[in-house]
């Protein structure tokens, strides 16, 4: 009799989901799926609201990356106003975007994933968490909290609030920066940089320890999609879309974000509220791509900060330079390179005199009926597309979220891990945790990706060939 195993809810991620593993009569894995089972429907209820409200509304999609929605919404608003925002406003928006990366990546690495790395996949689940981490290395855990705090501090200094700041608006930002705030943030840079380097050193030191596991963590060729700067540098706020295949070939480049719809399609499946974006030229399934840190560090030609660029070269060398790094386990590595980049880049921006300018907002009426904004959220490229009437009232909204763009790859990763580790019909704690850890590589934010709320504990189900649940494990 064939069976299905369900892991529900998946733990130490943001949101609520379950995993099912289908076994055949001999206990071999035939399929595995990552189901996201919450829904909020922001795209629909935003219709009829004023374009000006969208920053405030869409930032409520998420408590982790509200700033990414705020910035991307403001950029869609800039497009509708048809304005080029002042230099100071752009640089301030860039700084807050970097801060968003720092705080979100720090939470992902130190808080959610480090327990696996420092305590082991097979350690006692009762202590394989932030408190176990504290017991193992209190200073490391403290540094992680403080690094996240640094990111939050930048957001609060700029936007007056850590979460859901209404600071960025169509046309620019509401409040200017000043020298006292700049000096305050500059004083925090050395410790943040030191912590980013420490995290990199720690992660690289455990790569050898996990050498047997790593090849199973989503090791497959896919395309990688993200924004790059005009000169090919790592980009986080603006730029054009680049698509790279798993062999490291750039197959599409310098795509204006307004043409994203020509390249990215969205499919749906009856078993998940999370959409399945795909690369249109190759069609659904074949068009699987990955976004986020692994994609960004793969597709860029270089990083324009010295320490992160040196680390990028080490990263790329793992795949022989020409190839893309195709293993999803290295999302963690890429994430830490990005933290280092973000701290270095923030320091560069803070030293830029233009940051203290007072011309921070361009004002205009509704000049276009369609506005598209894109930026690199921590988990990957984020699109906001608004259609408005002549008064700026929204007629249609489309949000394409980074986590959703990784959906096909996350499912592939779950399947790979299940095939590798499942033995017969029994789920062990170690297997359960490895499957969860495969999902955690992507640091999925399901609140964002389904625009749904809630936490994401783990639930695994084992089903027989008739679909009856024969075994279940919850955490």
């Amino acid at each position, binding site marked *: 009799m064939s069976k299905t195993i369900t892991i529900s809810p998946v733990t*130490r991620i943001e949101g609520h989901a379950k995993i099912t593993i289908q076994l055949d009569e001999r206990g071999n894995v035939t399929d595995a799926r990552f189901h996201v089972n919450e829904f909020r429907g922001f795209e629909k209820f935003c219709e009829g609201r004023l374009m000006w409200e969208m920053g405030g509304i869409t930032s409520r999609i998420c408590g982790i990356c509200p700033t990414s929605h705020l910035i991307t919404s403001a950029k869609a608003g800039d497009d509708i106003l048809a304005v080029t925002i002042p230099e100071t406003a752009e640089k301030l928006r860039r700084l807050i975007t970097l801060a968003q990366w720092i705080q979100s990546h720090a939470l992902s690495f130190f808080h959610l994933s480090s327990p696996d790395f420092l305590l082991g996949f097979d350690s006692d689940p009762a202590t394989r968490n*932030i*408190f176990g981490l*504290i017991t193992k290395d209190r200073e490391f855990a403290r540094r992680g909290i403080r690094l996240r705090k640094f990111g939050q501090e930048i957001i609060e200094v700029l936007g007056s609030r850590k979460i859901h700041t209404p600071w960025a608006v169509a046309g620019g930002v509401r409040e200017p920066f000043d020298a006292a705030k700049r000096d305050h943030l500059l004083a925090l840079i050395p410790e943040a940089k030191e912590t980013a380097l420490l995290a990199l050193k720690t992660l690289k030191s455990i790569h050898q320890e996990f050498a047997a596991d790593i090849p199973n963590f989503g090791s497959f060729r896919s395309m990688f999609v993200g924004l790059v700067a005009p000169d090919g540098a790592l980009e986080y706020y603006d730029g054009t879309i680049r698509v790279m295949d798993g062999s490291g070939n750039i197959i599409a480049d310098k795509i204006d974000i307004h043409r994203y719809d020509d390249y990215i399609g969205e499919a749906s499946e009856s078993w998940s509220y999370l959409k399945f974006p795909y690369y249109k030229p190759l069609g659904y399934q074949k068009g699987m791509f990955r976004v986020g840190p692994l994609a960004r560090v793969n597709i860029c030609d270089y990083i324009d900060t010295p320490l992160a660029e040196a680390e990028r070269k080490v990263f790329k060398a793992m795949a022989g330079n020409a190839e893309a790094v195709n293993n999803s386990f290295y999302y963690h590595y890429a994430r830490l390179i990005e933290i280092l980049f973000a701290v270095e880049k923030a320091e560069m921006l803070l030293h830029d005199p233009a940051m203290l300018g007072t011309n921070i907002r361009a004002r205009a009426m509704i000049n276009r009926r369609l506005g598209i904004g894109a930026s690199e959220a921590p988990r990957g490229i984020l699109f906001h597309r608004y259609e408005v009437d002549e008064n700026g009232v929204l007629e249609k909204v489309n949000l394409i979220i980074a986590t959703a763009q990784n959906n096909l790859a996350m499912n592939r990763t779950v399947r790979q891990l299940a095939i590798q580790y499942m033995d017969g019909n029994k789920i062990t704690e170690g297997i359960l945790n490895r499957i969860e850890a495969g999902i955690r590589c992507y640091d999925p934010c399901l609140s964002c990706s389904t625009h749904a709320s809630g936490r994401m504990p783990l639930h695994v189900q084992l089903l027989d060939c008739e679909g009856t649940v024969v075994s279940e494990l919850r955490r």
Partner: protein
Amino acid sequence: MTKTIIIGFGNTLRGDDGAGVAAAEMLAGDFPGANVVAVQELHPELAEQLASCDLAVFLDASVRTSTLCVTRVSPARSVHGAEGHAFSPAGVLALCSGLYGHAPQEALLVEIPASECGFGETMSAQTLRMTDYCVLLISELLTGETTAGILLDLAPSPAAG
């Protein structure tokens, strides 16, 4: 002198759920030098601020009581409430204790009765009244006119509410 931190949390876009934030913002206005924090949700960085305090008072809206409730909070003994980005008071106290070796000697949770938590930025009349009452009590705590112990005696527990 007792070092106190007041932390009000909740979602101000969900009607009465924002009562804790509203109370904290009123207190911050009345006592500019006090250590008052108003946040949408409890987050791990608060652990550092808590570590330097003797008394922590969490202000939150609650649908499980019809009157203002004050209860003592202890650090959580399990990871529940201390993972991801949304922490419980017990969870953030546990994180504080784990990271810094100690937590505030006394921690209180003040629950402000809430009944209407739909979309909207206005609070119900009952919650507004109870928010004012909460601000009055915490003001007396900040001025030294009352103590944590008296607060615990004064306001009913959730079971009695």
